[in-house]
């Protein structure tokens, strides 16, 4: 029986996403007191669609390695990647990324990863985005993809943050964008005169500001695990089809 020799098998083109790429930091930007965005040039990356993430690998001088996943805020078909990272006080990697990393520093990235929590301009129909804290990051990529493509799919964003200062991408989100409606929710401190008292997102917030279940929107929810699970439960209680609700949890906070 004829089979591929071992040599031929091993010489097969490597699968692109399983590879680690060396990336170089191009720029960083403070987004909030605890978070910043980081633009990297990653030769060989080859682009990503909205909602995907990357694994980052850091190697210490003694060889110890740490791998963490971060959502991608940018959409492109090139080698530029923008991440945005919130510092977790007990984190092993995020304090370095937020406080220490400088332009010119190198990081290893693997990706783009994940084909499920994604939006592409070819998808028709209304889209409801619901983000908590740095859960805005993959949703920002969807908003940017929506804008860049000229998609006429109606978009709405509910963005829950602790206080006005904690918002990522504030100026971009405050710039009026056709086809995008943004609702801010504050959990601890709201701007003076804000109609809604500070508090966690409720069924009433969803009923009042999100697309109704009767419109059958595609819903993307991203944030800390507790946030995502309370929102997903509330959406189903409001009649949303669980199959139309996609979630991404990033654990603590």
């Amino acid at each position, binding site marked *: 029986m004829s089979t591929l020799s071992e040599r031929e098998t091993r010489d097969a083109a490597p*699968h692109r*996403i*399983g590879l680690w790429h060396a990336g170089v930091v191009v720029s960083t930007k403070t987004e909030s007191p605890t978070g910043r965005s980081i633009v990297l040039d990653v030769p060989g990356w080859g682009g990503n669609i909205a909602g995907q*993430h990357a*694994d980052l690998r850091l190697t210490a001088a003694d060889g110890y390695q740490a*791998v963490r*996943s971060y959502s991608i805020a940018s959409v492109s078909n090139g080698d530029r990647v923008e991440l945005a990272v919130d510092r977790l006080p007990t984190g092993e990697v995020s304090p370095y990324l937020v406080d220490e990393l400088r332009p010119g520093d190198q990081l290893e990235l*693997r*990706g783009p*990863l*994940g*084909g*499920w*929590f994604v939006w592409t301009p070819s998808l028709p129909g209304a889209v409801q985005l619901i983000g908590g804290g740095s859960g805005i990051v993959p949703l920002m990529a969807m908003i940017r993809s929506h804008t860049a493509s000229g998609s006429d799919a109606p978009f709405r964003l509910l963005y829950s943050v602790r206080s006005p200062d904690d918002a990522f991408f504030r100026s971009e989100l405050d710039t009026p964008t056709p086809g995008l409606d943004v609702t801010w929710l504050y959990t601890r401190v709201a701007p003076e005169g804000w109609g809604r008292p500070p508090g966690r997102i409720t069924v009433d917030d969803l009923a009042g500001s999100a697309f109704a279940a009767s419109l059958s929107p595609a819903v993307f929810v991203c944030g800390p*695990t*507790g946030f995502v699970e309370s929102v997903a439960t509330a959406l189903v209680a409001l009649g949303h089809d669980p199959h139309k609700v*996609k*979630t*991404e*949890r*990033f*654990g*603590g906070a």
Partner: protein
Amino acid sequence: MGEHVDGNSLAGPLSELFAVDLTMASARCLGCGDVSELARAMVYPDPTGYVVRCSQCDDVLMVVVQEPDSVCIELRGMAWLKVPR
């Protein structure tokens, strides 16, 4: 125990082993019969790997244990895994 995340987080680790994105594959849970994409499963990371549980009944679907020279994938909780082409 750390807080759980979800199957989206498996995309990177599983890309070391499989040429397709398994987070888009659907698994049938042996415990309750639910069929969902692996992305929807609950993932409990620990220092040696991951325990992956059904989002509906919490039964264990899959355990990934990373050892120095190998990765062991136990699939005791799945009747099948359907991979889109």
